[in-house]
């Protein structure tokens, strides 16, 4: 994946929280909840020097868009934006930003958690960790094959019947 990627939900450029906040501003939403995931200097006890994230661009963009829509519908929140960075990231750099805006805070908290966890469990993104000695390994992840069940809180609610 050497080509530069610029899709709404994945980008190689550093993530800009300010831009996401400006794009989602709404006068009817009193609650803004944000999650940002940054590169840690350690993982399971081992020092980490940097990371490389890769993603299947078209599929990942489509799946993240679906997670945004599910989040808005299931938690009745007007705004949910998810952006993931790919490429090489240094310690402290931000890999994912999720922004939720809602009239009230309870649904903003619940929606934020759902959106973040769903992206981590379902988006086709892979993290390769690099260690100070120059070695690397792919981080053990979440299986997205049929037959592997997501945790309960990430299961979709049954669609409401139109009666």
């Amino acid at each position, binding site marked *: 994946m050497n080509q530069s990627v610029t899709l709404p939900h994945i980008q190689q450029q550093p993530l800009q929280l300010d831009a996401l906040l400006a794009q989602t501003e709404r006068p009817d939403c009193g609650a803004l909840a944000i999650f940002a995931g940054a590169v840690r200097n350690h993982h399971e006890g081992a020092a980490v020097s940097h990371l490389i994230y890769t993603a299947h661009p078209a599929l990942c963009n489509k799946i993240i868009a679906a997670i945004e829509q599910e989040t808005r519908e299931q938690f009745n929140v007007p705004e949910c934006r998810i952006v*993931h960075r790919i490429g090489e990231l240094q310690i402290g750099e931000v890999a994912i930003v999720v922004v939720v805006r809602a009239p009230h805070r309870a649904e903003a908290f619940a929606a934020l958690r759902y959106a973040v966890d769903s992206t981590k469990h379902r988006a086709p993104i892979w993290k390769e960790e690099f260690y100070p000695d120059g070695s690397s390994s792919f981080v053990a*992840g979440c299986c997205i*094959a049929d037959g592997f069940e997501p945790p309960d809180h990430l299961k979709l609610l049954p669609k409401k019947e139109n009666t």
Partner: protein
Amino acid sequence: MESMNTITIRFWGITARLAGAEQRVLQLSAGARVADAVEHLRLDATLSGELPRCAYAVGDDMVGLDHPLADGDELSVLPPVSGG
């Protein structure tokens, strides 16, 4: 003679490392399904251990093992994901 379909396999994440390539081109019989391509990949001893944890996509659609493959399809091999 049976007609053949050309299928490009795209390896993602650790599967590219195990396969030693980002893609492989397979010739499969017309009517072959995802399961037939996976059967073929299983012949690669380095890759085969990872395949039970993999999902599959054609283009940007997730597909099951019984999804029929068309000539020119790009089949992605998606190991467990670790974004965020």
